[in-house]
């Protein structure tokens, strides 16, 4: 099934669908997210039964600030679709999809860990890769990078964005 065919097949349920660089992308409201994922999973001929990953992108100078992307795939034959949800910067929450795809559990924890996006209804939304007592959300663009203190007295390696290169 070509991307255009898949886009046509889901348009009745997800009107905001387009094809970019050969990938099918659909945008939904956060209130509709769980229903849309369930429909995509159960709909005959679409059957996107694998949730591959959840990726948050932070655009600090824009509103909506956060975009959450759900990369979906059907096991065999392979069809792919990306579902995207926009979140406001002052209240970044999105319903958890662990009820539809149990694999979302760790993906949601990871994105919470790095971006502070709350996944409402997640069974245990705690940090996963960083220590429990870590402060801040390091993959946000406005998070200071911090330098590295060295063993030499008074010496400090400046953060990478202050080193002048790249």
């Amino acid at each position, binding site marked *: 099934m070509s991307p255009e065919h898949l886009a046509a097949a889901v348009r009745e349920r997800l009107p905001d669908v387009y094809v*970019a*660089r*050969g*990938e099918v*992308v659909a945008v939904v409201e956060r209130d509709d997210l769980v229903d849309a994922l369930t429909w995509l999973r159960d709909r005959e001929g679409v059957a996107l*039964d*694998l*949730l*591959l*990953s959840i*990726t948050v*992108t*932070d655009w600090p100078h824009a509103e909506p600030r956060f975009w959450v*992307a759900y*990369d979906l*795939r059907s*096991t*065999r*034959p*392979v069809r*792919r679709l*990306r579902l995207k949800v926009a979140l406001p910067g002052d209240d970044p929450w999105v319903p958890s999809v662990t009820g539809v*795809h*149990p*694999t979302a*559990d*760790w*993906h949601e924890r*990871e994105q919470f860990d*790095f971006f502070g996006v709350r996944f409402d209804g997640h069974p245990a939304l705690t*940090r*996963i*890769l*960083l*220590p429990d007592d870590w402060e801040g959300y*390091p*993959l946000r663009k406005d998070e200071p*990078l911090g330098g590295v203190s060295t063993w030499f007295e008074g010496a400090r390696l400046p953060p*990478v*964005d202050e080193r002048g*290169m*790249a």
Partner: protein
Amino acid sequence: MSDRIGVEARDRSGEVRQETMIINMGPQHPSTHGVLRLLLELDGETIVSATPVIGYLHTGIEKNTEYRTWVQGITFVTRADYLSPFFNELAYCMGVERLLGVEVPERAHLIRVLVCELNRISSHLVTLATGGLEMGAVSVMLYGLREREVILDIFEAITGLRMNHAYIRIGGVVMDLPEDGPARVRRLLQVLPERIDEYETLLNDNPIWRERNEGVGVLDAAGCARFGVTGPMLRAAGVASDLRKDEPYAGYETFEFDVPTRTEGDAYARYRVRIDEMRESLRIVAQALERLEATPGPVMIEDPKIGWQARLSVGPDGIGNDPEYLREIMEESMEALIHHFKMVTQGVRVPSGEVYQPVEGPRGELGYHIVSDGDHRPYRVHIRDPSFVHLQALPTMLEGYLVADLIAAIASLDPVMGGVDR
């Protein structure tokens, strides 16, 4: 230690109750494949619940790529899953190439397929070797690592490094195969099939190996879908899912190979699938080698802004730049120096956009979600590492089994913590 753990015990009021024990396994445990930590709730020897705790190897690779150029990103992503560096490089570079809208030369595709399939074998050999060691099969460990060493020698001859090669670059590969490269690979092709036979004679009908692996860590196809499990684990559960067949990239559709499957979905089936995959990879390597001879040509696209990395020839001592090139930029042409400076410090700007680029890694679908805002650095790189995803299925695979089965189950799941924690 109480001797009443796991058995019925009477408390002070005389009530009969069941006690369980919480045990911490790892992160410094030789059988947890690196720095994986498991919190086990045990009823005697039986696992009541298992909770994986990860993050001990987190190095911030995703954040780091946002502050380096697109080319420098390769040196980071290759260190994520350190047993399959070429696959990380390939997925990242293919994603960036799609954003750039460039086509890679035929010879570069063939070299990419060649090194990736060799990498698949070397990765499966480590799985076999460490898995064997954990079952007490020390000779399997020695054999597996011995053969892997031969492959790493080939990698060193081709790329200059045994691991973390940064060999696959945006637009192709950084240099052509060395003169003795094909001969080395051909020698491997002669030796390895016999060696794989040897492993099979050693293990296939070995009563201890079968006893420890059969019926252990079972995950069927439906379970795989729920947990997002792909790769050898899904194929061992009877689904012939392989992106090289289902969604061919890098010219895989032109190669002849089969997708081995089993139906049991247990640790033993995964071992058999991996052994068969090594043979299929050898078939692909042989075909790639043959076609490389008939396909001369560049290994990097022409565009100087992208292809400059492949044209910085190395001096005769193997260190530093070619003196000829240095003379040109330092003594002859001011413009050449300016260009050199711009290309090395900033590199190419990538048009804004978003792609998800998957490849079939040794452990399953390895995907790169790459976002560009049109700058000379990535805006966001997210790695969908199969080990991270598969570890989530571990509690389901363990509950109700014995502690000894846990070792076999983890070994068959084949997590690489560098990829899990990134």
